[in-house]
Each structure stands twice: as C-alpha cells, then as structure tokens.
C-alpha cells in the first residue's frame, strides 16, 4: 500500500521539493473520499485545505441567481483542486462538485499557511507551484472565452 509520504513525494506537483519539505507536507495531509454528487466545498465557505485528486472527477461550478449551476471546468486524476486556502480572505470562490466518487489527499491549508510563514523557502516553493497552476487555468479560460468553435 502506498503511504501518504510516498504519494506526495512522487506527485508531479511536488517534483523537485526536498524530502524535508515533503515530510512537512505529509504532516498536514490526510486521505479523503467524496461520494458522487456531493460537494467538496461551496462558494463563500472557509478555504482551509487543498486536494490532490487521486481518482474521480470534480466539476468547478459557479451559481447565478435563478439559474442552474454553470460548470466552468472539470478536474481529474492527478490534478490539484483549490488555491483559495493560500490567499486572504481564505474563502472559496467556486463550488467543487464531485461528479463521480472522488478519492483525494487533503492538505490542511491552515497548517501549511503557518509552516509557510515560518519557513519562507517552503512558502516560495508552494507559491511557485500554485502560480503555475493559476497560469495554466487562466490560459485555458482565455481560450474557452474565445469560443473558437463558433461560426466566424
């Protein structure tokens, strides 16, 4: 059976991170499961963790009054869910909906924030990694907004 430490150390998101740091991260990590159809978090709730998705699919949704939820994107195996834990006011900006049963590793954001404040090298490593994810998703969103498949 794979240990949490092994999974975190081998995950591409943490590639290049010294074992000292992966050990620190493991101290803030726990295995979690969500049934299909349930919400992992909802807009406005406190954001105190992020997730490494191991299996399943998560839809990021936004609500507009008197409308059904709008699905903005989906995340799957190997992807990172959530960065609001890293930035004040530490509140989720979207709903995360498990559209299939999801297994994930939850990392305690409160615990990590404290460790990042105490150790700025760790904080920088975490920020670099999340900045990369933010850039990727911003670019994907831009392309999505272009509506490239629409008739000229």
């Amino acid at each position, binding site marked *: 059976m794979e240990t949490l430490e092994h999974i975190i150390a081998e995950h591409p998101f943490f590639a290049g991170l010294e074992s000292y740091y992966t050990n620190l991260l493991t101290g803030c990590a726990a295995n979690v499961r969500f049934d299909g159809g349930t919400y992992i978090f909802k807009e406005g709730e406190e954001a105190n963790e992020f997730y490494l998705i191991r299996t399943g699919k998560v839809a990021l949704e936004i609500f507009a009054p008197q409308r059904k939820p709008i*699905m903005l994107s989906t995340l*799957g195996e190997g992807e990172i869910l959530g960065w609001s834990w890293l930035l004040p006011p530490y509140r989720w900006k979207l709903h995360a909906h498990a559209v299939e049963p999801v297994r994930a590793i939850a990392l305690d954001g409160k615990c990590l924030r404290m460790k990042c404040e105490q150790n700025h090298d760790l904080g920088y490593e975490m920020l670099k990694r999340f900045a990369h994810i933010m850039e990727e998703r911003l670019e994907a969103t831009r392309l999505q907004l272009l509506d490239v*498949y629409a008739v000229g």
Partner: protein
Amino acid sequence: MTMATTATTDPMLPEPYSVRQVLKETADTFTLTLESSNGSGGSAFQPGQFSMLWVFGVGELPISISGDPVERHRLVYTVRSVGQATHALVSREVGEAVGVRGPFGTGWPVEKAQGGDVLVIAGGIGLAPLRPVIYEVLHNREKYGRLVILYGARSPRDLLYRKELTSWARQRDTQVLVTVDYGGLSWRGHVGVVTTLFKYARLQPARSLAMACGPEIMMRFVARDLETHGFARENIYLSMERNMKCAVGFCGHCQHGPHFICKDGPIFSYDRMRPLLEKYEL
C-alpha cells in the same frame, strides 16, 4: 514526407457524382456520401486530402474528405452549413448531382507515424479531416502503437460522430477523451479546452506523432503545449485552412507566406508552420 497527390485527369474538370446519403450530425453539420455517376469506381485518397465540390449554379467549395480510405467507391464529406454554398451543398437530395475535383493536397503522415503512438487532436469540425487517420490506424492496428484521440467541441450537442467515438473507445490500445467548452448539468464528461486533456493522454511523447485539426488559434495553443509535453516540432502536424479556389497552386488565393495551402498543404509540420502561426499580420 507525404507527397501531394492530385487528380490524374484534368484537375480543373469536375467529375459527376451523385448524393447517396445525407446524415445530420448536429444542428448545422451534415455528412454527405457521394458515389461516382460515370462508373469510374471512385477515387483513391490519402487521409487529410480534400476535394473541390461543385454545387452547380451556386459555387465550389474545398471540403476535406472524412470517409474511410479503404472505401474507394464512395467519397464522404462532413460539412458545416455556414453560408449560401455550404447550405446548398447540405441541402442536396439523394440522387442529385455534385461535381467533384480532386483529391488535392498533402495527406497526414500516416506512414511516418507507424511504429509509434498516434495522437489525434481535433476541435469542432476538425474531427472530420482526421477521421480517415483513425480508420487507417484501426485497419492496420499492428503497425501502430497506442491511438489517443482528444476531441474538443463547443457543447455536447456539437459533438460529431458520437456513435463512432464510443466505438473507437472500445478498441484495444485506444483512448478517446472528449471535452466541451460549455457542459450542461447532464454532461458527465470533461469541461474545458482540448489542451486540458493532454495530462490524461496515456502515450510516450518521445515516440509519438501528433496530428491536430481545428480552428487555427486552437492549433497554435495545441502545438505549443505539445512541445511542453515533450513532442518534437517535426512530429506535430497541423491542417491549415485558407481560401482555396483552384486547388492546384495556380490562382494564389490560398497563399500563406511562402506556401500554397492547396498544393503544399493543407497538412504541414509544426516546424514549417510555426513562424507563420506566430505572425499576427497573417
């Protein structure tokens, strides 16, 4: 290098074909099956080539062939009805005449792809010119490694070839991933642009060849991301589109930098096309 193949008869003279079948794929997209009216037995083509289709009295259109290269007796085209000529084409009744010139242009590098994994990336109606590649790989499974098909569309109702997508996904060593930009609540697949599927593709980039077709801006993002994922530029192929008229490099309507898309293309490797893709004046 795949060589261009042009019609052996006068390339400017349309051959008479008749409509055998018109199949509605989506609200505005139709697949037409044509058969030769003069008993010539049809026309061989390479995956990726296109024909010039005459709707008599209306106009002529360049349309990629989307059928099975093995089925020489018929030509299949998937056409999106977006203007007068395309509307007239998809409105043909069974038995009505259509003129066909071609096939023209270069094909996808299916021979070069042999021995390695094949990545097919399609956006919107871009799946149509790639469907012959998928047939080619599935007919000759032993010659290729894994086949990965990544397909992006605007919404679930805009997906082409739904039954075939399901059928292809069941073939051995074949992975089919579909994503849409706007998924309704009943959609259980991926939501996001087609590049977001790369991370799920199970293949070895160093021994893979990628073929992409879709809106040009999509292909620019796709090619750039494929490079990031370890694909060599010379192993990334794109299908370019410009205003093709004569289809044999005489008229110059489809000139794109130093290339005539109709004759030198429409399939180009990314290392040849990259400087032009990044020029905003073009």
